[in-house]
């Protein structure tokens, strides 16, 4: 594949929590460029700032300094440049949670369709798309089941379907395979790779799981809030 569009561009991004005595510098001046089609792993010891970086790219954590541009649009430059961050997330970003956080009162299919409902899709089309994704992820037969009755792997795949539903170009995942056995973990990673290629999306995944390292295009190491070259 030719070099894709730049989907995530981060410059001098920093984040500290607290002030004075209690100040914690979670992230110190990070630069990062991710293009369409890339599947990237964020690695690093616990407390190195992986989640902090991911959440700032996902626009759910205010950076202390730096710049962020998503899909060509600047969204943060010392302050948020848009006031509809949720709409931005709905349209451009898909989150895959570690604790998969499906809504317990909706069926698997509805958990996927709710994103499309929010994006303004007609109900019928939304449901059809949800079904299609679930079938694709091989949990179509569980479409009418509520999350409490799904196995860990099934729930994780429903969560992935939800993250992909509105065809976001930036997919963020915080340890998506932590709840899965290694063969399932590799299947999920293969699937994400396939989706990235098909949808011209990029995938940034925090992981500790060495067994899947070979499934990534790039490994990015964080230590004490800095990017270190591997």
């Amino acid at each position, binding site marked *: 594949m030719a070099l894709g569009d730049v989907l995530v561009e981060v410059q001098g991004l920093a984040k500290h929590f607290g002030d004075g005595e209690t100040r914690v510098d979670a992230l110190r001046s990070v630069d990062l460029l991710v293009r369409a089609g890339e599947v990237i792993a964020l690695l690093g010891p616990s407390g190195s700032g992986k*989640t902090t970086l991911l*959440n700032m790219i996902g626009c*759910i*954590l205010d950076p202390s300094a730096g710049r962020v541009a998503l899909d060509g649009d600047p969204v943060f430059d010392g302050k948020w440049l848009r006031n509809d961050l*949720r*709409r*931005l*997330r*709905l*349209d451009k970003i898909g*989150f895959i*949670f*570690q*604790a998969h*956080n499906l*809504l*317990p*009162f*909706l069926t698997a299919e*509805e958990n996927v*369709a*709710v*994103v499309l*409902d*929010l*994006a303004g899709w007609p*109900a019928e089309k939304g449901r059809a798309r949800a079904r299609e994704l679930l079938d694709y992820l091989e949990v179509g037969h569980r479409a009418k089941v*509520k999350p409490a009755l799904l196995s860990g792997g099934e729930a994780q795949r429903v969560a992935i379907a*939800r993250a992909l539903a509105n065809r976001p170009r930036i997919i963020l995942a*915080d340890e998506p395979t932590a709840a899965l056995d290694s063969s399932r973990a590799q299947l999920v990673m293969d699937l994400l790779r396939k989706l990235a290629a098909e949808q011209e999306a990029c995938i940034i995944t925090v992981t500790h799981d060495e067994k899947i390292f070979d499934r990534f295009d790039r490994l990015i190491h964080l230590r004490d809030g800095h990017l270190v070259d591997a």
Partner: protein
Amino acid sequence: MNLALKDIRHGLFRFVLTCFGLGLLMTVVLAMIGIYNGLVSDALAVVKAPAADVWVVEAGTQGPFAEASSIPADTRNAVARMPGVAEAGAINYQNIEAPFQGRTLRLYVIGYERGRPGGPQTIVAGRGIGTSHFELVADRKTGLAPGDTIRLGRNHFTVVGLVEGAMNSGGDPAVFMALADAMDLQTELAPADQRVQVARGGGAVKSASVAAVIVRVTPGADVSLLTATLRQWKHLAALTQAEQETILLASVVDKARRQIGLFLGILLTVSAVVIALIIYTMTMEKLKQIATLKLIGAPDRTIVGLIVQQALILGASGWGIGLVLILLVKDVFPRRVVLEPFNVGVLAAIIFVVCLAASGLGVRAALKVDPATALGS
């Protein structure tokens, strides 16, 4: 996709239970409103029943419902002859207790003159009082039925008809009888020393007295002129119907009314707090789900809608269940429970406002929640 309904259906049992609990609370509130109304309307029933324009009572008294009033029975003749008077009837009231089929009935005996104002209004079963002695028309709440006989004083009375809604301000059901029977009964039941007086031939005056004379005026007559004229008679006082009702409400039932009114206020406050607490807790339990919704991009509108709709559904069901329950049980109450559509409407409005205010609290918390909390495990 209606998230509020889906969430309710997911935890249906618990939601229904909550609605039911709230419904029970609303039943109590409605019962209290009904009892309050019932108290007022029962208290007035006895004054309103004769459809009088003017009450002629003993001078210096507030009339038979506030204190003892005793005027000579022949006052009626004099009053009836006055200009502007269409009808006049002497009337007598007394409380008695009488054994009946192993129970003791508390009865409010109304003695009236047949064919004159003061008698029972609509007979719902049997017939009215006839010319013969010792006949009764009883309120249905006495438990008496046409054909029953009951011993009052020395005589056995036969129930010939039934009425509804006739009682005194204390809620004791009424029985109607001929004035002559009622006056005899009063003498028989008078304290022993008075009876001795009567036996000696001394105090016949007492037995010839009645409580009041009820006057209906001719159309266009000047009621104030009539009462002014009546007041010139030294031993008489005259009250218009409106004055009589005011006296009864102000002096007789006022305390009871205020008592219930205050209790109702407390009950409404407690209900408001309970509703607020339920809705707030409901929202708090969903904070993580709300964070998830925010994370996937749901606008505030969706989140506010979820909370407010559930609050309103809860309030409406509680109100509906309360209404159904009170309608089912209201006739079991020993005293009348009167619910006007207006009261029920006002309660609905209060619940609506409380639910909105309570969801305001929840909405504030929900809008503050950080979408990142959805990511924590």
